[in-house]
């Protein structure tokens, strides 16, 4: 697949600490905003110089006019440096990278299953689903604590989505892992193979369970994966996952995969 990614010099327009340690960025990058689709990502240069050396992969969490949005969690040195950026700063991005979520023409029900910061690409998808289609929409969000609600609420409007929030600390109606409620809710709402589609992003242990549930209900399921990346464009073969039929590159063959195409023993 020949992609259309290029290098963009974007301006950081706004920055918001959504919850402690998680930031929302709006970047002015017209060409990028125009070309991107939900599920795609960018590789962002953290700093001039050679340490840190590699760009960091971040999903687009939305686009709006000439701007693109990122939602990221501070994890290590790269994201820590980014957290200190101030609006006005010029940022080097490459993108849009990777494939994107597929919205089948016949789709009747879209079930989005997000785990923590994995919400990022699904928020972009959610927006497109609301804008472009008239269908049943479900948003399952799993988080460690109740305060993470701020990551999605505000983006996910309750009239647009049936919204289920599950926390490990039990501050919400549903306690446990998001995957603990998923099957029950699918059952209750009689969501099944007919025109339904599951979209998921989150920790790989969660994705594995989502894939198993999707398989049990025979619902097509697209998952967005993460892998450590060097190039982000398919050149280095550094980011592979085990798929049926051999390794696939997360950056160029993904990051979105049909859950049935993957070898789920990999984690």
């Amino acid at each position: 697949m020949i992609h259309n990614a290029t290098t963009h010099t974007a301006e950081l327009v706004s920055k918001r600490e959504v919850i402690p340690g998680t930031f929302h960025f709006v970047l002015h990058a017209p060409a990028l905003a125009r070309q991107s689709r939900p599920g795609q990502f960018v590789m962002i240069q953290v700093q001039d110089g050679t340490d840190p050396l590699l760009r960091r992969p971040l999903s687009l969490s939305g686009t709006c006019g000439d701007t693109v949005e990122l939602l990221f969690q501070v994890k290590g040195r790269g994201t820590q440096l980014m957290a200190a950026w101030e609006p006005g700063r010029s940022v080097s991005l490459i993108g849009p990278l990777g494939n994107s979520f597929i919205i089948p023409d016949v789709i009747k029900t879209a079930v989005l299953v997000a785990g923590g910061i994995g919400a990022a690409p699904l928020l972009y998808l959610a927006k497109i689903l609301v804008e472009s289609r008239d269908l049943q929409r479900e948003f399952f969000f799993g988080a460690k604590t109740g305060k993470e609600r701020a990551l999605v609420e505000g983006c996910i409007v309750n009239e647009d989505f049936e919204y289920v929030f599950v926390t490990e600390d039990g501050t919400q109606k549903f306690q446990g892992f998001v995957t603990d409620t998923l099957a029950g809710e699918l059952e209750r709402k009689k969501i099944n193979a007919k025109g339904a589609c599951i979209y998921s992003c989150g920790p790989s242990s969660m994705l594995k369970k989502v894939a198993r549930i999707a398989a049990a209900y025979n619902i097509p399921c697209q998952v967005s994966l993460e892998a450590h990346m060097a190039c982000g464009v398919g050149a280095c073969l550094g980011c592979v996952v085990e798929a049926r039929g051999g390794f696939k590159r997360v950056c160029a063959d993904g990051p979105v995969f049909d859950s049935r195409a993957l070898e789920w023993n990999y984690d």
Partner: protein
Amino acid sequence: MTDKALDLSVTIAGIRMKNPLMVASGTFGYGEAYASFIDNNILGAIVTKGISLEPSQGNLPPRIVETPSGMLNAIGLQNVGLECFIKEKMPYLRQFATPVIVNFYGTSIADYIKLAERLTGVDGIAGLEANISCPNIKEGGISFGTDPAMASRVTEGIRKATTLPLIVKLTPNVTDIGAIAKSVQDAGADALSLINTFTGMAVDVDTCKPVLANITGGLSGPAIRPLALRMVWETLKRVSIPVIGLGGIMNAQDALQFLIAGARAFEIGTALFVNPQAPYEILNGIESYLQKRNLSALSEVIGTLQQ
């Protein structure tokens, strides 16, 4: 400063390149990965991902880890294999007015010979780059590239099997790179490229496991540049065939260090990951350097190191 056209061209092993900037094996796929960033026609030469007789799956992930000013990779030479490369990848590569140099490797001398023979007939291949950093399975798994005698035997074998220009790519994980270089030259190589990656390792202190599934990986990037430069300089004292320098070149200044030390061309690898515009920036930077010094040809820079 000047309107004169600058002559950046170089000829290596009979391969004429419009400029000395080559993209390194394993960092540019089969020429297609950077299509939306870089016009392949501006490159001096394209070196393709190393191929083997049969397709290879490579190592299990994780395959890469970042280190200070560098990265370790343990791709394990994943590739589509010889026949698929010729049938599916060469047609794309033939489109460009840029020499294609095919990097290849084997685990026995017979492998290298078969690969060289088969590639020799193929339209659009300007030259071969033999990667001899791989373990010689037949002789106990020691790398072909770490022993002068083995390096010589494998070079001799390839030399007899092909009429194509032959570049041999050396590993830096050796005591005396000059000795290896000399024996590869004497065995008939037309040029040398150095260096491949240094073997390194990283440990995850939280899990107490190696970060890479393969335990060790190859270090590339600016961290190794001073070592690569020293090896190029040391090698040039021992051989008369052209040397292509690589290892950590990120910008024009870095590239010029190698050219001044005597490398006739250079390859960039890891730099592409960080900055896909690097080829443009490096070529512009070299042109500015020539202009500032009122030089009209790159040849006036190569090997000008004053000691």
